[in-house]
């Protein structure tokens, strides 16, 4: 056995570049020591990708900052362990020596490309600064080198772009520039901290492709930190799962995904929705969420840190924290896990049978009453120049959109950011005034109502926002937040009745009664979103616009909220317009899906039709850019070129033609209209494209 292992290791002739052993990083406050990273060990190899996954607050980012020795001082401190970079312990280097390594030999890409670039320097200045610092090249040489790196990362016309300022570039382009900066000195290790979280799926696919290409070319070790298991499955060779500052499971990507040993890993895997075609057409399932949240690192339980959220809890879990132990692995990479019990999970995703009335068969949907009908809805913004300048033009955020929503169904609305999906959602409630078109809700044209009537009318339709941090008034307690809608619409006779209603709302949304006296900042993101949902439900609406309600949440929390929303839909017979850029969530929750591109709906179909047989090339590209959370199913993607065009000057003809792989001549001149596929009244599949297939 041992011999065999050695043999494999010798075959496995990759260089170990970075080795971290027993790293401990703590933050100190007046409440005590907070062990953000606790005894973490792993290694990174040249040409390999190591993925670090876990929920927020589990110590992923602190680990990466520790490697760079960028822990904020004096609150934070690396207390122990070793970080060996090519036989040198980084923790023992002098600050000046460390500066020579940072950005030169180990570099980092951050999550927010919008804020990580300095807005007052041109892109070229920022890249060449690093090159000059580390390699001592002249100004001219470093500029040439910058152009070269920009070319690597696939920026078109780098000679011109090098003089651009960050605000000239789109999000995807900025992330490319960030990568170019990180790569400018040929680093041996690249740490990517959530490099694609802020980007759209199509752009995410481009960036991931680029990263793996560059990794091969330059033989770097890549440490990829992400909460998206799909990204890890596509990119990583080895995976480290972190929970509450500890490594809880570690192994090759195949082992982790096909044979998880730690209930937390299993829980994470369960909580992401998988596309139906990837799970062999099994029934629609309910997401299996991990209950609760990551424990407070100041008040860790005795024994296993995951015990409070674990469904396999046993007495042994509460006695002593288990050590990492080895398990037989399928590859040369050791598979270790931290669980006192030895549970073998079934390899299939756990499926709870769950009947979802809203996503019944198509005929059932088509027979239900139309609740909301939108006709030719448009929203235009005037873009003004300076005070004395002429107006520059109009942006059509939403352009001639028409659709129906039937009672009890969920219409999913997908598209990249900037395609107008949020504007559309807000127009429906007239939170933004539409420029033209009709919104007919229960036979009443919403666009004709005056302000006072519309406020009363909004009792029937509500909205839930993306950012649960911004959508609750920080100065109001939960009680005040939930009372307000009841007060406004006089929904109670007595104080008793009011509290009965509030308690019922809390019960519905899975909140305890103690929360009434608390302020929003005391809650976690998931709980805040529950409060937002409770507020929306307070007025007993029939229709709710859900504007990316789970995008800002961790996967396990996402699953909790999605389940909650489905339960509520069933219990209260709600109708949803579910806006999201996440195609997996959309598939999971919707019965029909509309795909938006530059303010127009380009395809609309039942969820089965759309995911099985999409017609519009844009939908196809979207579908193929979804990372699949199964390393065995890595696939060839259709990668879209370029970014979303500026809505200020949309392309002529079909607005998708500049990025479309099958564009032909007529696409440039004639705009296709949304028409029904097969002209079949039974089918609700429609799309706008001249050349499907």
């Amino acid at each position, binding site marked *: 056995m041992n011999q065999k292992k050695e043999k494999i290791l010798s075959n496995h002739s990759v260089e170990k570049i970075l080795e971290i052993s027993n790293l401990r990083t703590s933050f100190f406050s007046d409440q005590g020591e907070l062990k953000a990273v606790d005894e973490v060990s792993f290694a990174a190899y040249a040409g390999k990708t190591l993925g670090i996954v876990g929920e927020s607050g589990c110590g992923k980012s602190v680990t990466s900052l520790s490697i760079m020795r960028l822990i904020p001082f004096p*609150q934070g401190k690396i207390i122990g362990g070793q970080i060996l970079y090519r036989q040198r312990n980084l923790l023992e280097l002098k600050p000046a020596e460390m500066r020579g390594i940072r950005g030169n030999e180990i570099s980092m890409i951050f999550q927010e490309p919008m804020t990580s670039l300095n807005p007052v320097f041109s892109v070229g200045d920022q890249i060449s600064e690093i090159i000059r610092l580390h390699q001592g090249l002249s100004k001219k040489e470093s500029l040439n080198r910058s152009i070269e790196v920009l070319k690597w990362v696939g920026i078109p016309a780098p000679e011109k772009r090098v003089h651009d300022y960050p605000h000239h570039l789109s999000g995807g382009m900025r992330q490319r520039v960030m990568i170019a900066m990180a790569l400018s000195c040929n680093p041996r290790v690249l740490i990517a901290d959530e490099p694609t979280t802020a980007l759209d799926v199509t752009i995410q696919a481009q960036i991931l492709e680029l990263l793996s290409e560059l990794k091969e070319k330059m033989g770097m070790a890549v440490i990829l930190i992400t909460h998206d298991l799909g990204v890890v499955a596509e990119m990583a060779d080895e995976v480290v799962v972190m929970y509450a500052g500890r490594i809880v499971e570690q192994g090759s990507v195949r082992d982790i995904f096909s044979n998880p040993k730690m209930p937390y890993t299993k829980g994470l895997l369960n909580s992401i929705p998988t596309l139906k075609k990837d799970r062999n057409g099994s029934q629609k399932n309910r997401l299996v969420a991990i209950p609760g949240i990551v424990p*407070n690192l*100041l*008040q860790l339980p005795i024994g296993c840190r995951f015990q409070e959220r674990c469904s396999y809890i046993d007495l042994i879990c509460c006695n002593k924290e288990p050590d990492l132990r080895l398990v037989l692995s399928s590859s040369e990479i050791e598979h270790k896990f931290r669980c006192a019990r030895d549970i073998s999970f079934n390899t299939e995703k756990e499926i709870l049978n769950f009947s979802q009335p809203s996503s019944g068969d198509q005929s059932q949907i088509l027979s239900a009453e139309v609740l909301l009908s939108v006709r030719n809805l448009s929203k235009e913004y005037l873009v003004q120049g300076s005070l004395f300048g002429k107006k520059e033009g109009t942006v059509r955020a939403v352009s001639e959109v028409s659709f129906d929503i039937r009672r009890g169904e969920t219409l999913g609305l997908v598209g990249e950011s900037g395609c107008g999906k949020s504007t559309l959602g807000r127009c429906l409630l007239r939170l933004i005034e539409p420029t033209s078109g009709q919104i007919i809700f229960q036979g009443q044209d919403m666009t004709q109502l005056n302000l006072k009537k519309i*406020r009363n009318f*909004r009792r029937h339709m509500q*909205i839930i926002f993306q950012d649960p941090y911004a*959508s609750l008034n920080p100065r109001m307690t939960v009680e005040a937040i939930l009372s307000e809608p009841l007060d*406004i619409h006089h929904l109670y006779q007595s104080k008793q009745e009011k509290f009965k209603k509030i308690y019922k709302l809390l019960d519905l949304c899975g909140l305890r009664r103690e929360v009434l*006296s608390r302020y929003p900042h005391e809650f976690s993101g998931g709980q805040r979103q529950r409060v937002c949902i409770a507020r929306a439900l307070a007025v007993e609406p029939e229709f709710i616009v859900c504007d990316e309600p789970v995008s800002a949440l961790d996967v396990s929390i996402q699953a909790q909220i999605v389940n909650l929303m489905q339960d509520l839909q069933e219990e209260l017979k709600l109708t949803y317009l579910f806006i999201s850029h996440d195609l997996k969530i959309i598939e999971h929750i919707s019965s029909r899906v509309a795909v938006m591109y530059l303010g127009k709906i380009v395809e609309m179909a039942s969820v089965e039709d759309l995911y099985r047989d999409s017609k519009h090339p844009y939908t196809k590209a979207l579908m193929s850019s979804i990372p699949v959370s199964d390393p065995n199913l890595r696939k060839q993607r259709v990668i879209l070129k370029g970014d979303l065009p500026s809505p200020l000057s949309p392309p002529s003809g079909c607005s998708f033609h500049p990025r479309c792989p099958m564009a032909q001549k007529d696409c440039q001149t004639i705009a296709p209209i949304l028409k029904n596929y097969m002209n079949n009244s039974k089918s609700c599949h429609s799309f706008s494209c001249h050349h499907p297939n």
Partner: protein
Amino acid sequence: MIPTYKSLNSIKNIYFENNIWSHAYYKLKKNRAAITSVVVILVYTVISFLSKIEWIASPWDEMVGDSYQSPSLNSIKLLLGTDIFGRSVFYKVLHGTRIAMSVGLISSLMSVPIGVILGSFAGYFGGWVDNLFTWFYSTLSSIPNIMLLISITYLLGKGQSAVYFALGATAWVGLSRVIRGEFIKHKARDYVVAAESIGASTYSKVFKHILPNVFHYVIIHFSVQFMSAIKSEVILSFLGLGVQGQPSWGVMIDDARLELSRGVWWQLAGATTAMFLVVLSFNTLGDALRDALDPKMK
């Protein structure tokens, strides 16, 4: 990235009353600097009240000794020496407190409502309301403040009420500009849109939702305005446009100008120390109040 200490606080919080003011009271009580400031301000208020009804420091314009007698601990009247007419400087300081406190309070009470209302309406409604408002305050603030004060006091005649009015009518500009900016920022926030979607009226959005979130600016302004009013009164009195026939800190500083060259420092020292203490207290209290009223600072 760094876990916060929410859960600890929330456990503690259950036992608290559900009221922002009782929280604030509890937090203020623990802040020693704030308590000291409150005590100082209370003492100043009591002094102004007592000197108004002539219980203390009365009569102030009586001769208690020779001209320019230096401070001595022998008698309370001579604690800060005497002025050119042999009057007690200490009594004058006490009397000046009344003028200072009333100028500060009245001008703050005048400028805060004007500033809040104009600023919030301009910021919330935008459009022509905002244009009109911006034009108005730009015009007002383009005139040097002291010139404006002087012309208003000329217009209304010299005296105490002219000073009140002049200060109140000019001091709102800064506050309303800040409030306007904050309203523009906050009205686009999701929580305001959410309030709109549950049917909240404009009144409720402005006063119930946005205003509490920008209220710390009002508190800061109040304390800053209090001290700047006291300072402006001093300047006006110094220029001979302020309070007539009564001792005020400004008049005393004005007198001290000529006296300093003769080595008579006590008039200046008395007035400035009194001013320093009250200004510092208001500043400290303002900061403490702002923190105490912020639910995030628990």
